[in-house]
């Protein structure tokens, strides 16, 4: 459902994404792993049409993101990094706005808001202003917004960041429950999350894919069979990048 070919993104002289090709099929939960600044968020921003690719092609459900952004964006639910939402609205008003933009009317909108709020555990705070909510609730408002129109494609940038262990567990269950009918990409720093929810993991380092496989296949790459070690072996620590830049 998501096809990415030769995706490149440059910011001035910096190449944030340097030629990524990927395919994600229905039923897959793809985990994006990589150190900070590896290009995970930039890739997600290009898939969702927020940033234009410098090179390459992205298609979502058969719609080219650059040529047919509307059709592609209708098929995508997106949780941007940091789960931004309008602070002066309540989750209810915010979700109503999203429903209206997504073309859901009256009963359909009400139904969608109820379902999304129930799935993300938002019912108790629906009438509280978003800027008064805790970090965990804000994140869940972002999640509810992303799944509101029951999109076939879900892109989530660090969906469990800032959640407590119980909430993390709940969100992972939610992702697993939705996964059979959707193509999902999540980015994460938390390696255990890959094991918990992902059917496939991609490790990105400095804008390139350095590993792609099921969690089990990735584990096999290290003698210790620990994902931390695989991650460390395949990615470049900051110190090395600095050393390279100065040399």
């Amino acid at each position, binding site marked *: 459902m998501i096809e990415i070919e030769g995706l490149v993104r440059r910011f001035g002289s910096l190449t944030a994404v340097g030629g990524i090709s990927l395919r994600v099929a229905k039923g897959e939960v793809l985990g994006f792993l990589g150190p900070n600044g590896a290009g995970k968020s930039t890739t997600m921003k290009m898939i969702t049409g927020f940033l234009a690719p410098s090179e390459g092609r992205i298609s979502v459900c058969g719609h080219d993101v650059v040529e047919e*952004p509307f059709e592609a964006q209708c098929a995508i639910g997106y949780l*941007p990094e*940091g789960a*931004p*939402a309008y602070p*002066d609205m309540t989750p209810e008003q915010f979700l109503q706005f999203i429903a209206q*933009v*997504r*073309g859901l009317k009256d009963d359909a909108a009400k139904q969608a808001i109820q379902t999304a709020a129930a799935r993300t555990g938002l019912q108790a705070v629906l009438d509280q202003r978003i800027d008064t909510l805790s970090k965990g609730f804000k994140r869940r408002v972002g999640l509810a917004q992303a799944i509101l129109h029951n999109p076939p494609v879900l892109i989530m940038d660090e969906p469990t960041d800032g959640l407590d262990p119980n909430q993390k567990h709940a969100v992972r269950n939610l992702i697993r429950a939705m996964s059979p009918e959707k193509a999902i990409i999540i980015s994460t720093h938390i390696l255990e999350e890959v094991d918990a929810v992902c059917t496939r993991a991609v490790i990105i380092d400095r804008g390139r894919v350095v590993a792609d496989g099921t969690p089990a296949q990735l584990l096999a790459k290290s003698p210790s069979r620990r994902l931390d070690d695989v991650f460390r072996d395949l990615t470049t620590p900051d110190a090395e990048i600095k050393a390279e830049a100065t040399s």
Partner: protein
Amino acid sequence: MSFWNSTYAVFRREFEGYFATPLAYVFIVIFLLAMGSFTFYFGQFYETGRAELDVFFGFHPWLYLFLIPAISMRLWAEEQKSGTIELLLTLPISVAAAVIGKFFAAWAFAGVALFLTFPMWVSVNYLGSPDNGVIFASYIGSLLMAGGYLAIGSCLSALTNNQVIAFVVTVVVCFMFTISGHDLVLGFFQSWAPLTLVDAVSSFSFLTHFAAIMKGVIDLRDLVFFGSLISLFLFINVIVVDQKRAG
């Protein structure tokens, strides 16, 4: 998702946003106090003993100069600062729909503030018999002028994520548009520039066009001036926001 449907969704969210914070109430109270005090104290509304609102409208351009940028500064700068722009631009909304929705919300808000000055109109009718046609035309002119200032402000707000910068730059640019018909500016050009250039500079002046409408005649030329000025700045606004994708 039709263009107008998403424009309306953005309009509604933005318009309600003004009233969700104290901003709307603070603005309206200050707007009315300023309008009132300028007219009565500096304009010597009673002392002139004439049943007209010329003094009242005469202060509008100068009050707008500082108050309108206070409405427009948040339009885009705030979205960019808080990251909600990423959410907005990845929803299936065209940039033009977002720009127009936001502009009309700000304009409608300015319209509400202007409408609340109606006691002035009522009082002047109570005190004497003014030319209500002239007053009506002046209100229309004032609203158009507010729209002009807002379009400039909206466009400049998109260029920065800092609201203070947006405010200051908007005041300066609006000031130039306001006084370009003033003798001070024209005198500077008259000494050396050809007459056509002097006329061109003068024709960009809000004061000139507003003064024309304040005489009670809504001339097509003045309508075209404000209409095309608003369209031009909103068009640039769309380009500026669109450029952020390529960034």
